[in-house]
């Protein structure tokens, strides 16, 4: 697989064209993240269960390059998949996932994302070889982290 094809894997192209989890509800708490160098933006919401201890789903809206949009879509899709399997994330679990994601993306290709844990989102591993695009892939995850931090106070 060429470098370019590892960056734009079919899963990423598909998610950027048909994104998952798009749509925000009136009045829900969101985090807006903007990459001023390229204009990519993501507004994201974490939707908690009644007890407020697990994430049922993630909603978002945004505009930008296919990497930033696919990454948001893949995060929302992963949250849904885990919730449907009865493994909805706690705040700690999501934070651990974000940390692992960040570490892999900053590894310049040394540490790929674990497919067991990240599912389709593991396709974003290829981004880590393109330093200039890491920020695009991080945007939605940074928005999620911002919401977790606000919640923790």
């Amino acid at each position, binding site marked *: 697989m060429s470098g370019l094809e590892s960056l*734009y894997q079919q899963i990423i192209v598909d998610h950027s064209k048909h994104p998952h989890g798009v749509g925000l509800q009136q009045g829900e708490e969101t985090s807006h993240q903007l990459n001023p160098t*390229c*204009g990519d933006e993501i507004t994201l919401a974490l939707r908690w269960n009644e007890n407020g201890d697990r994430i049922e789903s993630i909603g978002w809206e945004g505009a930008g390059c296919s990497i930033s949009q696919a990454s948001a879509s893949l995060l929302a899709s992963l949250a849904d998949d885990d919730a449907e399997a009865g493994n909805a994330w706690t705040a700690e679990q999501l934070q651990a996932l974000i940390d692992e994601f960040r570490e892999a993306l900053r590894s310049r290709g040394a540490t790929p994302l674990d497919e067991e844990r990240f599912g389709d989102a593991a396709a974003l591993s290829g981004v880590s070889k393109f330093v200039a695009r890491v920020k695009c892939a991080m945007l939605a995850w940074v928005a999620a982290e911002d919401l977790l931090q606000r919640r923790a106070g």
Partner: protein
Amino acid sequence: MLYGRAEVLDALPPHLYGGSAITTVTLEKAHFLPAPQRFEPGTPRVAQAIALAEAVRFVSEIGIDRIAATEHAVAERLVSGLKALPGIRVLGDAAVAPGGRVALASVVVEGVHAHDAGQVLDDQGIAVRVGHHCAQPLHRRFGATASLRLSAGVHTTAEEVERAIEAVAGIRAFFGLTEEGAA
């Protein structure tokens, strides 16, 4: 570079203060050297001055008319080649001409974000600028969020222009967009 009449320049106060720009300084008043020294306090920009002289020599050797003619020919082919591609929109309708379009073309690849399009060209060794090029209002006017800017110069060969056009033509296909769906 600042170019002006001596009496006007000498009437202007310095915009920076520093060594080698004054004649006499008292507690009441400072007297500055005539231009250009009054505007060049501190360590002179030696490297920049040498580079400027080199640049002038380069342009003089080739001849500014020849540079213009070469860039003109390159731009003609670049713009017409890009305009003929389906799904590719060349921004602006100025003709390639003196006083018109210079040797560059900003394009929008329909359905593909400029940063993704630029990445495909980069992979083929073609360097372009992507983004809004410090011209957000203009992009809004064209209904585009960002564009891809291909710039040519006196070094650009006809073969390179063909390669660039071909590479741009392949961008939409790389992202699985068919030309039937082109705008």
